[in-house]
């Protein structure tokens, strides 16, 4: 299972490109200001393919990005990735194809002024499918990095705003960092809960901390931990965005800044067990924060703690009546971590809950479209991956779509809003569902 891991050093050394100050526009051609050995390099889509020096330019760039040169050539163009990719389910003619992307990349035909670099949600389905272990996601992220840090092309405007906000405020919405702990402070203190060194540290993440729909996820987690008698703390205003979006959009500099700030705050807390509400956060912290080298300091998705509590009988669960739930496996839980059993075991323990499965489940889950910056991409209606998944949920006969990732939840809610097709579907985080079950227990 291909993992996104740091290359040999995160530093970029791009020796083959020289950015010129003046971008001269010659009539009839697009000039991005790229020069290779002094000559202008043209990358229009309908250029006749000529295999010359500029064809290998992007490959050489990747080589300089510490990636192995032959990663692009390793691809046999077999096409198994394209069908595995969730974008194959969309109907628009210019939908993303991983195979075509690689083919273009190795011939120097990627239109860096176009949008095809930004469609990938980093879901990892292609990595699962590829027989030659081509690290597609890493290649795309590296090329994005080229564009973002070298200014060598087009960045969707919504991404620019997000990156600027992350750099300035540590969250994507220019929200006040001091308000990050508001949801935590509003949790009614339980009798007997002590301050001091809590058992665990909960890394809430941006969406659950600031967004009004998202806060319900954070509050649910908080109430559940209180119910189970587990003392927990948060970083509060010292918590910054985990940086996963910045990293996957290609802004390595901003990612590092966020990472270093978080690492300092975490180390100051001497946290032994860290749980994150979003699988993206735990994944990036595990792989890029140098956490996880020894188990005690491992960062884990909150889902696993929830499973521990439910399976251990530490939560008195009451009946959730007349509900048929279907679980949507977040990509960063199922594909990157192999976690598929635990959420289902939780649902199985909720009395009265009927469960069904969608056509694509477990490791073959269909991406909601939120990863890799997709959250901010503003795809057009009719071109959204979330819509396909919502259709699958309805087809499976569910009236409740349950997930364990704030991105997934947000993507589904955004697509569902104002569209009658899925009005019958309630969208819940698994923590919210467990909380509902707790509330149904007589005497609660």
């Amino acid at each position, binding site marked *: 299972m291909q993992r996104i891991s740091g290359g040999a050093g995160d530093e970029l050394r791009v020796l083959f490109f020289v950015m010129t100050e003046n971008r001269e526009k010659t009539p009839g051609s697009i000039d991005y200001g790229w020069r290779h050995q002094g000559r202008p390099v043209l990358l229009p889509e309908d250029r006749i393919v000529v295999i010359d020096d500029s064809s290998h330019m992007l490959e050489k760039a990747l080589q300089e990005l510490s990636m192995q040169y032959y990663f692009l050539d390793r691809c046999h163009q*077999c*096409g*198994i990735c394209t*069908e595995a990719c969730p974008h194959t389910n969309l109907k628009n003619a210019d939908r993303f194809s991983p195979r075509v992307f690689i083919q273009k990349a190795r011939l120097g035909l990627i239109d860096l002024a176009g949008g095809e670099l930004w469609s990938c949600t980093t879901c990892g389905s292609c990595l699962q499918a590829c*027989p030659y272990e081509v690290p597609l996601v890493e290649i795309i992220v590296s090329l994005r990095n080229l564009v973002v840090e070298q200014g060598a092309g087009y960045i969707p405007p919504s991404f620019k705003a997000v990156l600027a906000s992350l750099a300035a405020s540590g969250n994507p919405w220019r929200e006040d960092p001091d308000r990050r702990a508001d949801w935590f402070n509003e949790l009614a203190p339980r009798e007997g809960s002590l301050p001091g060194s809590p058992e665990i540290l909960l890394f809430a993440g941006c969406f659950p901390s600031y967004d009004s729909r998202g806060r319900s996820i954070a509050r649910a987690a908080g109430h559940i931990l209180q119910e189970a008698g587990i003392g927990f703390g948060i970083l509060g205003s010292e918590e910054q965005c985990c940086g996963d979006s910045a990293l996957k959009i290609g802004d390595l500099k901003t990612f590092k800044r966020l990472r270093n700030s978080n690492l300092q705050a975490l180390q100051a807390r001497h946290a032994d067990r860290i749980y994150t509400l979003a699988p993206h956060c735990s994944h990036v912290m595990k792989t890029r924060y140098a956490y996880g080298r020894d188990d005690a300091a491992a960062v884990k998705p909150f889902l696993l703690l929830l499973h521990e509590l439910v399976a251990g009988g530490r939560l008195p669960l009451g009946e959730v009546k007349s509900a048929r739930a279907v679980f949507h496996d977040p990509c960063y839980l199922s594909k990157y971590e192999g976690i598929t059993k635990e959420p289902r075991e939780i649902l199985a323990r909720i009395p009265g809950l009927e469960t069904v499965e969608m056509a694509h489940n477990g490791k073959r889950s269909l991406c909601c479209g939120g990863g890799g910056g997709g959250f901010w991409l503003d795809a057009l209606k009719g071109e959204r991956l979330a819509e396909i998944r919502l259709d699958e949920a309805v087809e499976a006969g569910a009236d409740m779509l349950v997930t364990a990732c704030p991105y997934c939840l947000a993507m589904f809610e955004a697509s569902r809003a104002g569209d009658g097709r899925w009005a019958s579907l309630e969208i819940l985080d698994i923590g919210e569902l467990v909380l509902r079950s707790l509330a149904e227990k007589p005497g609660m």
Partner: protein
Amino acid sequence: MTNRTNERAPLVLIVGGGITGLKAALTLDDFEIPAVIVEKSGELGGKVRGYAKTFPDFRSGRALVSELVERVDATEKIRVLRHCTVSGVRTEGDLYRVHLSDGTSLGVHAVILAFGFEPFDATRQEEYGYGVYPNVIAAQELEALLDPLGPTKGRLLRPSDGKPVRKAAIIFCVGSRSKRTDSPYCSRICCSYSTKQAIEIKEADPDAQVVCFYMDIRTYDRGVEEMHQYAREIGVKYIRGRVSDCSPLPDGDILVRAENTLLGKPVQGVFDLVSLSVGMMPSPDTAGLAEMLGIELGTDGFFVSADGGLSPHDTAREGIFLAGAVTGLKPIRDCILEGTSAGGRVAAYLRRRRG
């Protein structure tokens, strides 16, 4: 029974009674060298015995085996031990003392390993649903369905409900050319046998739809590319794109999805039957025998010959030789060739050694 009493006569042990082993024994017999064939099953002929038709000229594999067995029976010097395997080997002077599973032992002067290969276990490629969906089968099973002496008497009826197959998909490269399943190699004959099977389906029912999903079409060798062209001329369809998954439909049909990479568009089809053209794995006996004999395996798990390829039948251990699919799957004609040349090689070896 041992041959201690007559140590002047050389004796060769051949492990494996398939076509390679049989041909090696017959060649040794031409040199008047006695051989003992040890065959683990009850029948000689190996896998080729089960092939009603072989590529490229559709001659019967069964008939080929019968011919070889007849010739072996007609000799005096070739002994066959059925239901028998090698359980241990020691050196004893200038002999190898080979212990057999029937409790006996043999003193031999050379051993030829000719016990073939194992087909890839298609359950390891989960997305195709082999072992889960009844109408997803592997090539060996398709072979049996097409065999006039097989369970359906040669009528292509699908497993779930016995319905005649009108639409068949053949998926190439299952368990080959994939690092993901630890089989990065090409298994050489699958493109050829798949094309042969496609032709058989089409010839039996010209209105049937047969679609082959491929990465490349490696129908090399004499007469085989011509067979491929013939396949296209009778309407076998080839779509370039490695299948990403098979999913079951309510009545047992299978939905196959791939990208048509030459068009750059997704393609999907509903088929009555899907056959997975599985590649090779080393025989399960390989690792044990390699250890017993102290000889090397390649990174792909098959035996490697010594001397950088200049002595294709030799191993690093003197007196132990290789022939046939133990060094990788290959066409029948190559196995016959290797059986012949291994016999010659061993004859030369014995002559040089014993004066």
